Every structure is written in structure tokens, then in C-alpha cells.
């Protein structure tokens, strides 16, 4: 029950304010960054499986020439959803899972700047993803036949315009039916979630660091998170406008991309890639951040050239805004445009290269432990270099004219996104497993996972380089029966199934070990950063006492000094320190306030897709009412949120917002 104070009113609520921190409802109403991170992670992983299944279906179709397993239409839907799912519903949210869980811990904070906004980002993402996937059930690819009921009872196909939705194909004339409305509205919803997150993380990093943690004492992972947040902040609005434009073209009769009516389809490409290129750096930078934490820990050496790595990360982010038209070299842009973007694309290899050398420098001369997270991080460096090299070849414009729309490009981006981002993410999942669960995963299974994945991944994507150069085109459901293409495609398909086996091993290891793995204890990796100064599983309130730092890798320096040759020497007080940290971590000396749970973020998340359905079905009887219902829930939720205090204890005046 709220107590009244002088100027503040009693917040009258229709439903009792949720208060629990355990149990099912505590997840629905949580504002705790760790729970939110966990939900992001599991949801993203479900989508990873779905995206993987879509890939396997594609590979079955392409295993032999001129296959008939999928129709052309089904194939289009499968590759569209595979790409859309992997990018927007797996890599981005799983990165968000890492940001959410770790960012406050790494900067010594108790939560993010805006806990309820954090929750709303998750729920908007969750219901946005669900909304997108209901297109499999409700989506149509043709004009409505037999009325709405008949339409729904047919199993529709999914969005089929590619993850990049090029106009004019995605416009009303060439894509009748509703699947591309699900796509454009779904992506719009997902983008909103990311935009809200980005504001949250930027304010958190700039305002909530522990005492003594200047910006250049933050872990590299935090820096990469910050750069990603800025990339999202400035690129999501662009795709938002583009998606509004295509939605309006489809629904309200605008003519932006309708070439016959004087519109400009190339405008879509510009707007999409203005977003799309920063997007790929959004996909890779978190993994680079993870690797920058894992390599030093298991080399028992500080990151080589920390300022250079930070600066390079920021440079990649910044320059990432200046290369977008390299996706358009064959779209009819002028030679000067091609030359300018070819140049800028080559330039962006420089900061990337700086990072690679710094990672190698970190390992050089270190005492290496080749456990699972380390293997995945080293694997990241190797696979990412391969992907980066093929990327540089795309920067050579005339070469790109040959490579574009072939499997050579598919090879490139899977090497950087799978061999890069996903390997990095797996590295992080193993690395922080003990922090999350308090237990250790099974190291043997972890290594098996790694080697199966290395085998399967390279079997799948290496042949795509020469398949592409030999003429196999993208996004086509069959290829001709030419000797070279057929046998390598079979190899690729087998490789894809091997990847699936590897993922299954990971899942088994995770699900088993989180309950039954051996207890990990404090600081199981003898690590360097603040998140390891608290016991796992992380307590609700994070730190028992707010940490104070005096240097980069402050925790490491509290445990280790250096001998005359710079090698670490364990301090005598290190073990006592760990015991003390565990004690204050489990038994904080003073009661700690946490942001209270809230229903409203969940309700906002539910409301927005309802409005989406209303827009799609606006010509049906129930469409506009549905949109209005959604809007009502939305406005009501904002109103409730606005008057709800951030914390339950109203002796404090602040906390009215966010």
C-alpha cells in the first residue's frame, strides 16, 4: 500500500501493483535488467531454431539441381523469413540479451537508466516477433478470395520479398495479399523496440557508471554496446521512414516507389541501405566486444592496445554510415557514386584490421587456456578474417559486378555473421554461463559443439565462394544441372545439417548444466571485469555494495600485481578479497531499493501489434475497431505508467517516470 506524502498523490491503481520478484508473473512484470536479458535470450534462441529450420528447408531444396521440394513461391518465403528471422529476431535480440544482462554489471550499476522502458523494449520485440510469425498462418499472397474467413483458413505463406523488401516488388501492385504488410509493419514494431533500447543504454553508460569508472576505464564490451546504441539511434529512424513509405504505398495509395507513376524504386534502396549497412555493424560489434573480453581472460593478459580497440570500434561505427551504396553498385548509380563508396568501403577495413591485430597481440605471449569460450573467440577471429577478406573484394567495384547476386556474397556475409557474430555470441554464452546460473557447463560437450560447428559451418559456407564465382545465383529456387554446382551444393546441404547437430549439442549442454552442472563458485575464470566480483547466479540487486574502481580492469589489479617482466603475480590478499566479495554479494549490509515491477510495459507490447492487425485488415469490418482497441490499450498503459511511481516506496519524490 502506498503511503501519502505532502505533494504526491496516492497512485490509485485499477489492478494491484505487482510486487513479486519470483514466479511466473514476476517475469511478465519484471523491470530487472537481468530477467529482461534472460527473456531476450530464450526468445531469441527459439527464433534461432525457427530461422535454422528455414535454412534447412532451403538447403533441402538446393541439395540437388532442379529440385521440386519447394515451389518458387515457398522458396521466396523461406529465404525471406530465414534472413529476417536471423537478423531481427535472433542476432539483434541475443545481443540485446547480453547488453541487458551485462551492461549494468560491467559498469557497477544496479540497473539501467530506465527500467520500465527496458521492459517495454523487450515486450515490443516479443509481440512484434510473434506478429511477424503469425503471417505464416494469416498471411496471403493474393487478392482475398471467398471473403476473410476463407482467407484465414488457408495456410498462407510468409513474407516473400527478401529481408530487404526491395520496391517495386514489395509494393501493392506486385505483392498483392498481406504478407508484405506483415513484414513492413512487423519490422516497424521491432525497430521501435531497438530505438527505445538505444536511448536507454546511452543514458545508462553516460550517467550510471561506478565511482572512478571514467569512459576509458570501461570494458570494451561496454564501449561496443555504446557504439551499437548510437548506430541504432541514428539508423532506425531511417528504416522507420522507409517502412512508413512502403506501408503507405501499399495501404493508402502513396506513390513513392511506384515507377509507373513517377516514383523512385532506387530511393527505397538508398533508404533501406542507409539503415541496412549500419545494421550489419550493429550485428557484429557486440560479438567483437565479447571477444575482446574473452581473449584477455583466457590469455591472462590485458587486451592489447585497449585505446586502439575502442577507437577502432567507434571508427567502424562512424564509418559504417558512409558505405551504404556498396549494396547498390549494380543498381544504376553513377560511376562517381560507385567510386566514392568503393573507396569508403575499403577504408572501413582499416579499423577492422586494427582490431584483428590487437586481438592477436593479446594472445601473443599469453598463457592460453583453450576452453570452449576461448575456442569460439579464436574461431571468431579466424572466420571473421575470411569473411572480411571476401568483403574487401566486394569493394572493388568491377569485381562486385560479377559477385553481386551470386553465392559469393552469401558466403561473405555468412562468414562474418555466422563465423563472426554467432561464434562470438556462443563464446559469450559459455563465458558468462557461470555468472548467469552459478554453475559450470560441461566442457567436453562444449568442445564437441565447437568442433562440430567448425566442421559444419565451413562445409556449408566455404563452397559458396566458388559456387558463386561459378555462376550460382542467389534467391533462386533451382539451379541448372551443371556438374560443379550439383556436387558442392550437396556438400553445403550436408554441412547445414551438421550445424544443426552442433546446435543440438549446445542446447542439451545448456539445459542440463543450468540445473545439474557443478557449482562454479566465485570468479571461476579468474577474470578481469566487475561482473565477476559478485556471485553467480547474480543476486537481484547486483552489487551488495556499490563498487569503486581506480583503473581499467580494476578487479584484476586488485588480485594481481606484476613482476619485473610484467607477468601477473597473485597478491596475498586476493583470496580474502574474493571471500569478502562473496559475502557482501550475498548479504548486503544495507537494504537496497529496486525498481518495482509493472504491468504496463507488457500491455504496451500487446497493444502495438493489435494496432498492426487493425491496419492490415482496415478494410474488413473488424479492422478499424481493432486498431482503436489497440490504441486505447496503448494510451491507457501510458497513462498508468505515467502516474505509477518507479519504486513502491513513496518516501522518495523521484521516480515518477520511465
Amino acid at each position, binding site marked *: 500500500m502506498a503511503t501519502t506524502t505532502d505533494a504526491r498523490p496516492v497512485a490509485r491503481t485499477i489492478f494491484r501493483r505487482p510486487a513479486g520478484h519470483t514466479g511466473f508473473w514476476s517475469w511478465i512484470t519484471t523491470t530487472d535488467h537481468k530477467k529482461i536479458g534472460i527473456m531476450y535470450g530464450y526468445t531469441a534462441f527459439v527464433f534461432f531454431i525457427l530461422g535454422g529450420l528455414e535454412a534447412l528447408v532451403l538447403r533441402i531444396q538446393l541439395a540437388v539441381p532442379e529440385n521440386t521440394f519447394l515451389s518458387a513461391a515457398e522458396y521466396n518465403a523461406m529465404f525471406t523469413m530465414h534472413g529476417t528471422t536471423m537478423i531481427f529476431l535472433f542476432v539483434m535480440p541475443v545481443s540485446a540479451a547480453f547488453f541487458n544482462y551485462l551492461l549494468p554489471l560491467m559498469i557497477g550499476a544496479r540497473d539501467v537508466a530506465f527500467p520500465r522502458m527496458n521492459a517495454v523494449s523487450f515486450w515490443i520485440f516479443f509481440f512484434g516477433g510473434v506478429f511477424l510469425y503469425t503471417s505464416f498462418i494469416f498471411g496471403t499472397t493474393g487478392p482475398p478470395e471467398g471473403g476473410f474467413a476463407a482467407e484465414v483458413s488457408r495456410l498462407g505463406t510468409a513474407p516473400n520479398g527478401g529481408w530487404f523488401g526491395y520496391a517495386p516488388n514489395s509494393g501493392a501492385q506486385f505483392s498483392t495479399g498481406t504478407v508484405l504488410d506483415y513484414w513492413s509493419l512487423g519490422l516497424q514494431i521491432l525497430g521501435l523496440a531497438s530505438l527505445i533500447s538505444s536511448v536507454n543504454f546511452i543514458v545508462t553508460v553516460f*550517467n550510471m557508471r561506478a565511482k*572512478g569508472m571514467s569512459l576509458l576505464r570501461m570494458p570494451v564490451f561496454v564501449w561496443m554496446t555504446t557504439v551499437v546504441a548510437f548506430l541504432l*539511434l541514428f539508423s532506425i529512424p531511417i528504416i522507420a521512414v522507409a517502412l512508413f513509405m512502403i506501408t503507405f504505398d501499399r495501404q493508402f495509395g502513396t506513390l513513392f516507389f511506384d515507377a509507373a507513376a513517377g516514383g523512385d524504386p532506387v530511393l527505397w534502396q538508398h533508404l533501406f541501405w542507409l539503415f541496412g549497412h549500419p545494421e550489419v555493424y550493429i550485428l557484429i560489434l557486440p560479438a567483437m566486444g565479447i571477444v575482446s573480453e574473452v581473449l584477455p581472460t583466457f590469455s591472462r593478459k590485458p587486451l592489447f592496445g585497449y585505446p586502439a580497440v575502442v577507437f577502432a570500434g567507434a571508427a567502424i561505427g562512424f564509418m559504417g554510415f558512409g558505405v551504404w551504396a556498396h549494396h547498390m553498385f549494380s543498381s544504376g548509380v553513377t560511376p562517381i557514386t560507385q567510386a566514392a563508396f568503393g573507396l569508403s568501403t575499403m577504408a572501413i577495413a582499416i579499423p577492422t584490421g586494427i582490431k584483428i591485430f590487437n586481438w592477436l597481440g593479446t594472445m601473443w605471449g599469453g598463457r592460453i587456456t583453450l576452453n570452449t569460450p576461448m575456442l569460439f573467440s579464436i574461431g571468431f577471429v579466424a572466420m571473421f578474417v575470411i569473411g572480411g577478406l571476401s568483403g574487401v573484394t566486394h569493394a572493388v567495384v568491377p569485381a562486385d559486378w560479377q559477385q553481386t547476386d551470386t553465392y559469393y556474397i552469401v558466403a561473405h556475409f555468412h562468414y562474418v555473421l555466422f563465423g563472426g557474430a554467432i561464434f562470438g555470441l556462443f563464446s559469450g554464452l559459455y563465458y558468462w554461463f557461470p555468472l548467469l546460473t552459478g554453475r559450470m557447463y560441461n566442457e567436453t560437450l562444449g568442445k564437441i559443439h565447437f568442433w562440430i560447428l567448425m566442421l559444419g559451418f565451413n562445409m556449408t559456407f566455404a563452397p559458396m565462394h566458388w559456387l558463386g564465382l561459378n555462376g550460382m545465383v542467389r534467391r533462386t529456387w533451382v539451379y541448372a544441372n551443371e556438374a560443379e554446382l550439383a556436387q558442392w551444393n550437396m556438400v553445403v546441404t550436408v554441412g547445414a545439417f551438421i550445424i544443426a547437430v552442433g546446435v543440438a549439442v549446445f542446447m542439451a549442454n545448456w539445459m542440463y548444466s543450468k540445473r545439474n552442472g557443478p557449482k562454479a563458485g566465485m570468479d571461476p575464470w579468474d577474470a578481469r571485469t566487475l561482473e565477476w566480483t559478485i556471485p553467480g*547466479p547474480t543476486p537481484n540487486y547486483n552489487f551488495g555494495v556499490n563498487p569503486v574502481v581506480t583503473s581499467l580492469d580494476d578487479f584484476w589489479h586488485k588480485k594481481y600485481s606484476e613482476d619485473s617482466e610484467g607477468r601477473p603475480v597473485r597478491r596475498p590478499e586476493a583470496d580474502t578479497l574474493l571471500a569478502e566479495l562473496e559475502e557482501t554479494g*550475498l548479504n548486503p549490509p544495507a537494504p537496497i531499493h529496486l525498481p518495482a515491477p509493472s504491468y504496463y510495459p507488457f500491455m504496451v507490447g500487446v497493444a502495438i501489434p493489435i494496432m498492426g492487425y487493425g491496419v492490415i485488415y482496415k478494410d474488413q469490418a473488424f479492422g478499424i475497431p481493432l486498431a482503436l482497441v489497440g490504441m486505447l490499450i496503448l494510451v491507457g498503459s501510458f497513462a498508468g505508467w505515467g502516474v505509477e511511481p518507479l519504486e513502491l516506496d513513496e518516501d522518495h519524490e523521484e521516480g515518477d517516470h520511465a
Partner: protein
Amino acid sequence: MADIAHVDGPTDEDGPVDDNHDNGHGDEHGGHGDHESTGTDNRKLGMWVFLSSEFMFFGALISNYLLFKGRDFTGFDRITLIYPIELYDIPFTSISSFVLLMSSLTMVLAHDALASGDQNRTRVWLAATGMLGMVFVGGQFFEFSEFIHEGMTISSNPAASAFYMLTGFHGAHVFIGILMLLSLWGISRRQGGLTEDQGLNLELVGLYWHFVDIIWIVIFTIVYLIP
């Protein structure tokens, strides 16, 4: 996750004891503002960050208009060859612009009134800002209806589409601003005044409102005044 007895819940009778005066959520008010914080309240910093992203949003819409406004659509399908520039009523739009500009004045006077502690005057200026905003939006509606009456709809041609999209989204932003202003006004009336903390919210709404105004400054010049 460990269930820790010390975490506060609604039935906790101990009352708050805050060892480092941070309420468990870091230095959100940025008290000392040196190395680990900017010294500005989280919410204010957040609003500035958000507004900087809005440049990308409106930039795209403005570019869209700039792309299409000069194109010749003769001979294309389903075109009504009427361009926005032919229909502009500059005196009318000038007055609209002036109204919005004055609403920024009333907004900042509301903020000033609250800082001086005059809750009544704050409400007066909040209401004035909201009303001026409504006049602006009303003017937009009127302008659009005139244009439609003269034959330029959102489907007439890409330039028309771009015009309506740009000014429409700007108007939607103004509308959301009006809702926020009215909410503040209503809360102030219900409570007898705004608390200091709610005063920050007024400041944030003000920032948003001024931003929408400066976007209009750009739109008015580029779209209406420069042929």
C-alpha cells in the same frame, strides 16, 4: 536468481536506509557530474538523445520531398498533375508558423512559471501552448482539406505523397505534444500543482515541443518558401 531477504517489497517495514545515497539505482540525478556521470538527470539526457535521432527521421521525410518536388510527372500513370507548390497559401501558412513560434514562447513561460513556483500561471501557459498547438493543427487540417478540394490528394503524384507525408508526420508529432501538454495541465489541476519532479517532465515536454517547432522552421522555409 537468489531470493534475497533484504530486497524491499511493499510490506517492508524497515524503511529506506541507503548506504551510499543512491536509492539503489546509481547516480541518476548526476549530482557531481565528473568522470562517471554527465551531471544531467537521466530523463533529460534521454530526451536530448532521442531528439537527436529525430533529425534522421525528419531528414528522410524532407529529403523525400526534395527529391520529388521538382520532378516532371507528365505522362506517368495515374497522375494528377498538381504540385504542392501551386497550391500554397503563403499568408495562411505564415500565420500558422507564427502561431507555432509563439507556442514555443508560451511553453518556455510555463517552464519559467513553474520554476518560480507559480502553479496557476504554469497552468495558464500550459493551456495556452496547447491551444496554440491546436490552432496550428487545425490550420494544417484546413490547409489539407483545401488542397484536397483543389484536387491534390496523397495519391495524386509522388510530390504530393511526399508533401502530405512530411507535413502529416510533423502534425502528428505536434498532436502527441498537445496530448502531453494537456496531460500535464490535467495532472496539475487534479493535484493542485506539479511537484518538482513532475517539473522535470514539463521541461522534457518543452524540449520536445521546441524541437517540433524547429523542425517546422526548417519545413516552412524549405518546403513553402523556396520554390
